[in-house]
């Protein structure tokens, strides 16, 4: 089948989650995914790159268990969102508008039955980690979009997940803010050691952040191409002008164009 990965999947690390022949058709007849094969290796930063509406979000929702596949199998889905399970960052920060920053970060622990006084230290540590200590008492509407996203990331990380799923989290932010959050996200990933699956439609963001880019086709989505990003683990703004980085961007961009070929713009 033509959708088979172009490169063998990383064989060194065990797969945390794997999708085999996964398809998803919705009740309204839309086929979002067809024959998706994808393995997420422990410790990697996987970018899911694809045109809008190609089912990238659906892949994340299936991994998270928010939707069930209509075909194929997912192993590792049992990673429920609990201690050491998975964290999910949505396109918008989706904070509780009536709760302050600390209470928003506390939410996953609160839902797990953790008492507030037992969580205070960890909440403070999370706020420091994402760089918003000092705003614990602020309400979401008092924060900028970038800071709200930082709160959402702190909330996703507060349960110390092994797997962090991120659905175009920086798409709505201005470029400078996005660059800063990109760098902070890389730092967070190294500090927490979690595995990240990051959905984006930006080629540059995908290559900058990830250790592997999976390019998806237009709907019905499947994995068209996988590109290993052999760039140093320590990345900073200088990388954005690095020829190796730009060559990978060109490769991913060509794959994305191939994904769009034959579909209306």
């Amino acid at each position, binding site marked *: 089948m033509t959708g088979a990965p172009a490169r063998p999947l990383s064989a060194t690390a065990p797969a945390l989650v794997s999708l085999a022949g996964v398809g998803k058709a919705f009740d309204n007849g839309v086929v979002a995914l067809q024959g998706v094969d994808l393995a997420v290796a422990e410790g990697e930063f996987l970018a899911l790159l694809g045109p809008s509406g190609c089912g990238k979000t659906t892949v994340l929702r299936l991994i998270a268990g928010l939707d069930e596949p209509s075909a194929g199998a997912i192993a590792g889905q049992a990673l429920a*969102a609990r201690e050491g399970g998975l964290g999910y960052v949505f*396109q918008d920060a989706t*904070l509780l508008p009536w709760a302050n920053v600390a209470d928003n970060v506390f939410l996953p622990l609160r839902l797990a039955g953790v008492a507030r006084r037992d969580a205070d230290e960890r909440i403070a540590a999370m706020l420091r980690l994402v760089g918003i200590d000092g705003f614990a008492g602020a309400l979401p*509407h008092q924060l900028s979009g970038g800071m709200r996203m930082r709160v959402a990331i702190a909330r996703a990380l507060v349960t110390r997940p092994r797997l962090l799923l991120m659905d175009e989290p920086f798409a709505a932010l201005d470029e400078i803010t996005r660059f800063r959050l990109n760098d902070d996200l890389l730092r967070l990933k190294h500090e927490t050691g979690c595995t990240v699956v990051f959905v984006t439609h930006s080629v540059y963001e995908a290559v900058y952040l990830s250790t592997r880019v999976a390019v998806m086709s237009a709907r019905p989505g499947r994995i068209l191409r996988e590109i290993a990003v052999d760039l140093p683990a320590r990345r900073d703004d200088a990388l954005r002008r690095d020829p190796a980085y730009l060559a990978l961007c060109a490769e991913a961009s060509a794959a994305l164009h191939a994904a769009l070929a034959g579909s209306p713009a």
Partner: protein
Amino acid sequence: MSRAARAGSAGARFAGWLLPGAVLAATLAAWEAFVALSGTPAYVLPAPSRVLRTLAADWPVLAPALGVTLRLTLAGFASAAAGGVLMGVALTRSRWAELAFSPYAVILQVTPLVAIAPILVIYAGVTATVYLSVFLVAFFPVLAATMAGLRAADPALSDLFRLYRATPAQRLFQLELPSAAPFIAAGVRTAGGLSLIGAVVAEFVAGAGGAGSGLAYRIVEASYRLNVPRLFASVLLICVAGLLIYAIVSVACAALVRRWRPQGG
């Protein structure tokens, strides 16, 4: 908001009190002058000063009547607010319950209270009729607002609660009810305005005199006896009572939902 705009809004608030006050003063002065200059007798049109003197003189009759009306209004209003929220929660828990009961909520709302009150009087007696009438007019706005509010929770937040395996109770108290709070507050404010109307209509229809009768009965009585100054005094009293209820409910609701601001900006 800029300093100038803030000063402008403070000026607008000041004008918001000053201008209606000026209109009231001018109207009362013109009314007083007209009655004095034309020699209109008080049984046709009492001057404002005469209305105030009557209010003071008839206070021993009017105050207990106002007390009766207010007690029943507040009791009915409080029951309707609590009942509307509880019923709203119940109907949104079960699709079957909603299908079974929501048509009756609509029927009760569209049937004019004046038409139902005579029936209530037969079976419930005067006092209970007033209480039930207030309940009937105040219940529906709270119920409708609660149901709309409970359904207005952000779908992404709803996914987040699902991801973290929230129990139905956690979902209700930590997501749905807080999301519904601004809606419920708006419904309660509407209900507050309607509840005094409900009480007055019921007292008009029930029309029982005696020591335990409400203010609306005093209005009917004064009208039959052509005691026009007392008629005006009673209407003034009920108008002030309505304003007070509205102000108290508005301030209370605004204080309750002060934190509920939409995200963005």
